[in-house]
């Protein structure tokens, strides 16, 4: 499987994702500069975390106009895997590839910690290696992770199984206390209707090696590989 990791000006988790894909999962992965217009036939695209364009105007608001974005939209339309992490999620929402918007955390503060995130269901190319209700320990690091959409959209997301990840406590219960940013319905990650585009605020690439504390995030990547019918390659 060929992966493309897009580098916007201000992306800062690009090297992290590249490392996990290349060194932990032995994947073929290339960086794609935001000024390019082609993804070079990549099978999967990652929009990594960071502060693209310095979060000027709104997070992701300017990145959505980058020259590479039409190619990303094309890949999404073709059913290819598109993964937006943190700022990547924000860009996908601004670009209209995902519904809703991410606004400022209700605490008004940037928050970086590892916390429990519940897997809603395994019926997706991103979660098939997890179990329904499985509680993962995943890192978050954001100031604008509060997911907002109108009630009709929120209902629809749940009805169509587009909500893949929600904030919860260690027992899988979602409460106000377990919600780090005020996201509606405790939403941490959603897909598009077709299920091939995922945006999530937590950073699975930061939880892919035990030495860093948790490898609960690895399942997201292995699910993608499994869904493409590929055996999991051993780490280099």
């Amino acid at each position: 499987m060929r992966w493309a990791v897009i580098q916007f000006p201000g992306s800062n988790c690009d090297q992290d994702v590249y490392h996990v894909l290349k060194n932990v999962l032995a994947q073929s992965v290339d960086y794609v500069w935001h000024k390019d217009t082609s993804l070079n036939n990549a099978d999967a695209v990652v929009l990594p975390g960071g502060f693209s364009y310095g979060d000027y105007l709104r997070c992701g608001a300017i990145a959505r106009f980058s020259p590479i974005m039409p190619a990303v939209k094309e890949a999404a339309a073709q059913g290819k895997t598109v993964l937006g992490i943190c700022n990547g999620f924000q860009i996908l929402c601004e670009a209209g590839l995902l519904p809703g918007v991410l606004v400022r955390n209700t605490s008004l503060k940037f928050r970086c910690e590892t916390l429990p995130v519940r897997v809603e269901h395994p019926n997706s190319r991103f979660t098939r290696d997890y179990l329904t209700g499985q509680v993962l320990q995943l890192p978050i690091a954001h100031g604008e992770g509060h997911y907002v959409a109108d009630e009709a959209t929120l209902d629809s997301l749940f009805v169509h199984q587009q909500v893949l990840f929600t904030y919860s406590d260690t027992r899988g219960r979602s409460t106000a206390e377990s919600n780090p940013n005020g996201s509606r319905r405790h939403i941490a990650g959603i897909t598009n209707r077709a299920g091939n585009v995922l945006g999530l605020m937590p950073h699975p690439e930061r939880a892919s090696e035990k030495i860093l504390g948790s490898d609960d995030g690895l399942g997201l990547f292995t699910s993608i590989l499994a869904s493409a019918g590929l055996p999991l390659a051993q780490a280099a």
Partner: protein
Amino acid sequence: MPDPTITPELIAKHGITPEEYLRIQGILGRDPNFTELGIFSVMWSEHCSYKNSRLELRKFPTTGPRVLVKAGEENAGVIDIGDGWGVAFKMESHNHPSAVEPFQGAATGVGGILRDIFTMGARPVFLLNSLRFGDIRPNAPNAGTNRRLLSGVVSGIAHYGNCIGVPTVGGEIYFDPSYDGNPLVNVFCLGTLRTDEIRRGAATGAGNPVFYVGARTGRDGLAGAAFASRDLTEDSKADRPAVQVGDPFIEKLLLEACLELFQHPEAVVGVQDMGAAGLTCSTCETASRGNSGIEIDLALVPQREPGMTPYETMLSESQERMLIIVRQGHEETVTKIFEKWDLPCALIGRVTDDGFMRVKNHGVTVAEIPAKQLADEAPLYKREARRPADLDSRQQFDLASLPMADIQALLPKLLAVPDLASKRWVYRQYDHMVRVGTVTAPGSDAAVVRIPTGDNTWKYLAASVDCNAHYVALEPKLGALIAVAECARNLAMTGAEPLALTDNLNFGNPHVPENFYQLQQAVDGLAEGCRAFDIPVTGGNVSLYNQSPAGPIDPTPTVGIVGQIRDPKHITPSHFQNQGDAILLVGEIGEELGASLYLREAHGLKRGRPPELNLDREKKLHDAVRSAIRLGEVRSAHDLAEGGLLIALAECAIGGTKQLGATVKLDFPHARLDGLLFGESQSRAILTTRPENATALVALLELRGVPARRIGTVGGCELVVQTTGVAPSEFKWDVAELHRVWNVAFDEYLG
């Protein structure tokens, strides 16, 4: 508008003494014009020239087998860590700006130290910081202001570090009324590079083009260096324009563009960041290092405000700018890369061979100064030092009449004291995980970070910043020596071997002999500590004039030490790990209460002599703990520091990811119970190990000359401490409750 005429008042306003003015006249062979006066003013300010401290700094040991770039040679020192890899690291202060504008002051402090690192060709991989404020507790006189400063500084550091994507992985925060109105913001950064790819800041090769890259120049931060070289007063608010404004996004682009450019060594002759004194400093310093001259035309400098005068352009401290000396013929390599990253990039001048820093404006020369004399021959002063008259009396306190505190009630109160309370409120605002290198989360004795060395190989570094300023205030030389020992001790607890040290000397007005005595003595102490642990000083920062009408700050010589852990298996956590583990107390039993947190917080006394430090004992402790760790015998290691034994035990119980109780019996003769529990005698640690290994571990440590004995077992949900002797006692604390008060304290103080 014509330049103002040079009058004695104008000269004084620039912080230049009559003698210094004579010297300037001597160097130029004439009077300086207004622009040249400004240039000398910033280059010869204390902040840029260290004129009051340079003589003292020569006492530092700066050489060693691993030193690739020495202190003072370039923007940061570089240490060899093996296999063709090196680390560039340094600590710097941004105290005065943070006092008047905490957010931008702290943010640009981060920006500045980052640039000092990547200007060496190193990719910054982590940050630490050491912060000091006045008391933030509700009953403290300036609590509101101090809280505002703390919040602003933390937000500023978070804003800059998070956006640029360099993790802040650790640090320290302390509180004392002496920092009221004069907070300390010391920022440490470490970057990695291949040892054959070190970039230096010399302008060589007459005719080589000089490029300006990065953000456009504006009027912000004008004369920041001079501002940092004065006491803070009521009128300092008017100095707000001297606080620079930072843009971490631009710096991220600048960082990536520079690192990309550095992969073309044939194109880059020299590089220097524009920090304090911006264009002025970078041009004359590169020319001086290169034994050459530099000529620039300000009309070519990208400017973002109209009508800037040469004075303003040369003194501006606009952020996120670099000066690059390019090899003739390779200009296109540079312009292409900066175009890719959409950053301003302009050819502004050339290297010459006449030794002058020559500044033109639209072809007309507006300043012409011999570069070497400007950069390297600032005046050097030997200030008068005098031991404070009251120091001897402050070192006395009447132990015999000191009442015994209610220890059961005291422990939870102490854990909520800002110095000891959990700093989670702070570090949760810092992205401490970006770059997937952070092995040990904030809250441990030292930060442990893995750095990539290619093909999924890694090296493991540990780093800590430390200074107990109360010790330094009560005995400067010993206090500074202890700072080094404690920092190295923190590293030893994680399994690391110290490599080198950077220092940030924060002191008051050096013209006051008692302040200068503290600086002089502290440097002696640091130098002795470095020699004892065989670690060179690779560079650092001096911040003087930390003084308000209320008086000087406590002398605060912050040290930062970087160490290496060979094998990731040896990375050792600080806190209790498993039920049933045996707890060992390692080191001599001591009861020294002088200068202790207990005396300050339970009795309101800032008195006493700091605890003794026996360097031989201290080194034996570090070596023994490291040996034990390498043999796989140690589950956790935590050193004793503020608050002594009882606080260390409590921290082991509550500071980790899970809270674990313990039952501990202290079967040692002691004169006073509070001395036993809260004394801050040095060279001690709490270790835990598998219960079946306890006897062997004790034997191992004793063999290495370090007293050790088992004092208890990890387990249960209470911290139980029993003491024996004439008046045996038993204390019990619910660990969940201790954790709660420790954890919520900052939320309660800051909201």
